[in-house]
């Protein structure tokens, strides 16, 4: 009976979350909706990196590369032929790709699957490495993917990027309920819910426990019959798939992508979320993804010139990132990990006492 109650509770949570998204979609202005949308995307990305780094203990820095694959796949599959022709003015697009078009859901899944395929192909040789070597190799591969995208001009439009990725991803709802045809939260929101459920179920299963065993002690894990290579590649591939999905959603949310977006800084943002949320901590990652995304917008005033009344500082673009650097350093020095988890536990303890 208890199990059924839990299931029911989860279903209620999900229904409430979806209703909340519909309501928010109506009442928030488009800027706020965009930020909320980004929150969901970063939840997906944070969880996918936590699966690889936090749960399986593989120090991978290749997220931006997999996101790029997802983003470009979605862009190429959803853009209209006219839009593509407008974009490719330097060098025409491959004729086969111009008329290639797919519904959004299929485009998104193809983006994820293609990223997973690359994750699998890259993971197979690279996951023989450990620790820092793995980090360097994955970082290198992520940069290689970016450089390849710059040079595949007839497919990706090179350094010019792709503009005009269609955002009307809400035909289904908008047609029925007369919701303003702006950005729609539903896709990212539902994808985030599915990701949370997927990671929870995965980590609850025997495979998830095997991943954790690998993180704790590789030598013991393989002596207990866990095929290290198979499980590492599995974790890496699932993580890449989710990174591809996140990248695809990001492309749609931004409407414009170019290779500079997928530099290391993007991976760094996700690392920030994972470290703040705690390695191997699902709820921590969700909370920190939202806090970091909102803070990144809320702290924008730091980049502009600030008037203190007696002194006017010049505009310093990038100052808000300094704040995050300081937070990250403080977390690494003082808390190591699980900052949110321990804070939550403390808060709960306080309420329990009263």
């Amino acid at each position, binding site marked *: 009976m208890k199990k059924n109650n839990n299931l029911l509770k989860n279903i209620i949570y999900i229904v409430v979350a979806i209703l909340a998204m519909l309501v928010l979609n109506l009442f928030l202005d488009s800027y706020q909706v965009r930020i909320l949308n980004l929150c969901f995307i970063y939840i997906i990305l944070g969880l996918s990196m936590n699966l690889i780094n936090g749960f399986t203990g593989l120090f991978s820095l290749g997220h931006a590369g997999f996101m790029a694959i997802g983003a470009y796949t979605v862009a190429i599959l959803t853009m209209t032929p006219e839009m593509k022709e407008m974009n490719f003015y330097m060098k025409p697009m491959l004729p086969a790709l111009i008329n290639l078009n797919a519904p959004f859901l299929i485009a998104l899944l193809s983006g994820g699957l293609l990223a997973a395929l690359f994750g699998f192909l890259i993971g197979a040789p690279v996951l023989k490495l450990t620790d820092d070597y793995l980090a360097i190799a994955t970082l290198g591969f992520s940069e290689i993917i970016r450089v390849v995208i710059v040079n595949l001009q007839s497919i990706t439009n090179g350094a010019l990027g792709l503009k005009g990725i269609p955002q009307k991803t809400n035909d289904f709802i908008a047609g029925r309920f007369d919701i303003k045809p702006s950005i729609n939260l539903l896709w990212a929101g539902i994808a985030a819910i599915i990701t949370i459920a*997927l990671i929870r179920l995965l980590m609850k299963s025997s495979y998830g426990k095997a991943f954790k065993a690998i993180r704790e002690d590789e030598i013991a894990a393989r*002596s*207990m019959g866990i095929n290290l290579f198979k499980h590492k590649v599995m974790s890496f591939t699932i993580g890449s798939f989710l990174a591809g999905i996140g990248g695809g959603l990001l492309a749609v949310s931004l409407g414009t992508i170019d290779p500079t977006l997928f530099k290391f800084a993007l991976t760094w943002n996700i690392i920030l979320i994972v470290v703040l949320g705690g390695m191997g901590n699902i709820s921590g990652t969700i909370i920190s993804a939202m806090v970091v995304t909102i803070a990144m917008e809320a702290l924008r005033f730091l980049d502009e010139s600030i008037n203190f009344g007696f002194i006017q500082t010049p505009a310093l673009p990038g100052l808000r990132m300094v704040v995050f650097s300081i937070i990250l350093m403080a977390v690494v020095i003082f808390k190591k990990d699980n900052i949110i988890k321990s804070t939550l536990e403390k808060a709960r303890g306080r309420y329990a006492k009263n």
Partner: protein
Amino acid sequence: MLKIDNITMKFGGVVAVNKFSAEIDKGEIVGLIGPNGAGKTTVFNMVTGVYKPTIGDILYAPSGKLQSITNLRPDEIAKIGICRTFQNIRLFKELSVLDNVFIGNHLRLQSGVVSSVLRLPNYTRQEKDMYEKSKYLLEKVGLYDERDEKSFSLPYGKQRRLEIARALATEPKLLLLDEPAAGMNPQETQELMEFIGNIKDEFELTIFLIEHHMEVVMGICERIYVLDHGAHIADGDPIEIQNNPKVIEAYLGVD
């Protein structure tokens, strides 16, 4: 059941194990002793696939015919029924006691990752069995009440027993114990000896163990191999070993 055929392990210029041979029959408890640095753990590492012997062959017959396992990976060796514990305890520290044993079951899981994530009946049935078996094993080693504690928080002796429970979860036929009594007091050592006898009978195990506590080795082993400086210097039953001048020389030294 296990036949170690003339194995040699060299690390660069150092010969850790030199032309060691041994044979273990089904149902035996066999000891491997020797002074520190004699190469005992290296032998275990070769049997479990952690190291590949420089020369020589390791043969194993879970039932019937001997087959070479020299080139198998550690996880493949665990699958065919050889499991071990570690001299310097290697638990999954941050995980609960129950999860540690549960993970030992993972290699026998018949479901793929998709049906595990979707919790299809085929998987949940197996998972239930795995948890029940893990709990049974924890009861067996007397750790059932601590099942939700993190494994690193257990005292040393209990960590050792947890390692044995985890190894038993893999359903081994041959169990390798690397200094199971290390760091235990005489009372605990006595309990451990009884415990090893019990699990051997209950799970129909063959046991190969390294130990420094002579009362353990002499008390439960039917046969003993002695290593010194990587070389095999004696074998026989406990009485023979105790009276073997070479063994006394290796342990006590001679003037």
